[in-house]
């Protein structure tokens, strides 16, 4: 039995990349605005994860501090974004992101 593999920074970065990819694909292919918002959050948190991992590896607290800022901004963004989505769905129930093309040039 080999010794339990010790998670290295690479693991976390790979996980972050995978999460980021899932988020990106979600934003691009899903049409439900709520799901798209969640995917954006996923991408943000993937970035946060890479920040924390690298911060730990380098022994620099700056990365973790940045994460707090990102989380605060993300929280604010969720408030605004959810507000907009709720307003849209009230006017047009079952609207998809593709239906919301009033600003088409």
């Amino acid at each position: 039995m080999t010794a339990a593999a010790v998670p290295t920074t690479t693991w976390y970065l790979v996980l972050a990349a995978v999460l980021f990819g899932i988020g990106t694909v979600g934003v691009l292919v899903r049409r439900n605005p709520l799901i798209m918002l969640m995917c954006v959050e996923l991408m943000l948190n993937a970035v946060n994860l890479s920040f924390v991992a690298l911060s730990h590896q380098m022994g620099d607290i700056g990365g973790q501090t940045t994460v707090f800022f990102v989380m605060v901004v993300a929280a604010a963004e969720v408030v605004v974004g959810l507000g907009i989505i709720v307003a849209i769905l009230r006017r047009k129930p079952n609207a998809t992101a593709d239906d919301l093309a009033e600003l088409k040039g």
Partner: protein
Amino acid sequence: MLDLVWLIPALPLAGFALILLFGRRLGDPKAGYLATLMCSAAFVVTVGIYFDLLSKPSEERQHVYRLFSWVPVGSLKVDLSFLVDPLSITMCLFVTGVGALIHLYAIGYMHGDPRFSKFFLYLNLFALSMLLLVLGENMLVTFLGWEGVGTCSYLLISFWHERATAATAGKKAFITNRVGDWGFMLAMFFAFQATGTLSYIGINGAASTMAQTTATAIALFAFIGAVGKSAQLPLYLWLPDAMEGPTPVSALIHAATMVTAGVFLMCRISPVLNAASSYAPNLIAIIGVVTALFAATIAVAQNDIKRVLAYSTVSQLGYMFLAVGSGAYTAAIFHMITHAFFKALLFLGSGAVIHNMHHEQDMRRMGALRKLMPVTAATFIVGWLAIAGVPPFAGFWSKDDILLAAYDKSPVLWALGLITALLTAYYMTRQVIMVFYGEARWHDAHEEHGAHGDFEPHESPTIMLIPLVVLAVLSVIGGVINLPFNATTERLTSWLEPVLGVHESDTAKLPFALIAVAIALLGIAASIMIYSKHKAKPVEPEFLAEGWYYDAAVSGFMGGPGRAGFNAIAWFDANIVDGAVNGIAHVVRGTAQRLRTVQSGNVRNYAAAIGVGVVLLLAWFVIVRGSR
């Protein structure tokens, strides 16, 4: 007392504002009395300031009254301030004095006009602008007044704008004046560039250290402005047509005050003119004397009573520029004052004739009015003797002063001036004979009309006669302000000396005076022989009646090649300039039309574009930058 100078323009301004607000309610004739009162009050204030100034020693006779800072922009600081010195107060004295008399006269002349109060509104606005012009301490205030009098001139020439000729004459005056204003503005710009200030004290103070070419440029561009305003060749065209306005306007604006603004400006910046190259004053003297002679020849063949006087005004203004060009600024101002007296008198006299002949202006339909209008005739004759240069009337002294200065400059100028004096005496005598002597030619004229029945011209109301009498007295004794006998009788010269300097001359005066008198008498005698005794046929060739076809030539040029040229410029503007602008707009619109499809409105497309962009940026960083 000197600090009350703001009252001088403020009083006509108050008159203007009051008539603007209550003019209709005041009506005929109260609005006229109000305007006259304001102008007279300004005259009284001016007299007060004059005596205050007189009581000071001559080197202290300069006072700047600053009202407020008008244009503070960077290094350009222009105040609305007034310069009180002998020159400006002299101008104010006759502007307000003659102005008040003409206001009074206009009450009678304009009586019954439907726009009576509006006329006095304009008249007071004119007085205000003219006083700003002469009192201004810097070129910008003068320019404000300069444009103001131009506007009032336009409004008053076309006062009876129902007549197409009056409306056209107004436009002609305005446009011709704009040509000159261009010169004034350039002179201002040059002066500011050279000295960093627009104040006359600053500019004149810097004149001695100024580069000669700069001084020449300022003087000549100011002269272009003066040529436009004072109706000299080649921009005199508007003044004869300006006679379409009511006669008090002709007397006030187009004889006594506004048209002398150009002469005033040249005197105001005389130190700059003195610092200029010698060809600048030479040019001014030549244009002056040529205009004087040119206009006098035209006046010989005119039949309209006012047009004779209009050309005569152009001619007399030419004399003033001859004096300016000869360096005799005081002589120019002296002639300006006496001219204001006798020319206003002649215009008002002609106005009285026109008024009582029911707007007949053709002298061929007048004659023998002497008995019917004794006061008008007597005063007109005084004006005639004054302008003809018969001693001891005012015109003799001032004209003699100018001719003497011209002789010091060049005998040719003097000779041309003398010929002009001969013609002046000739055509003015012709006018007096045609209007007041000979046989009455108005009976048959009005029988043709048939409307007036037993029409007979009669004397004007007293309110019109008072100004005539006052001006006649001034035309007789006006010369006393500057008698050329010795230093104490040359009052005007010593009064203006701090501003204008003295024109040194050691030419003996008496022979010239005798020659001038002889010439004047010769002109009068010739005219009497031709028009009264009918010894010879009148010489009134067609080309003189038409003003040497100058007007027709300008109209022909502007109507033919000029119009074609302007049409070509308009075509260039419409097609090339506008075409370039429209072309750019067209290209932008076409491009935008294509580009706007990029804005699909589809959020996921935008997200994909951002994603692709991020990937490309990363690729660039990794591959291109990373490989270094």
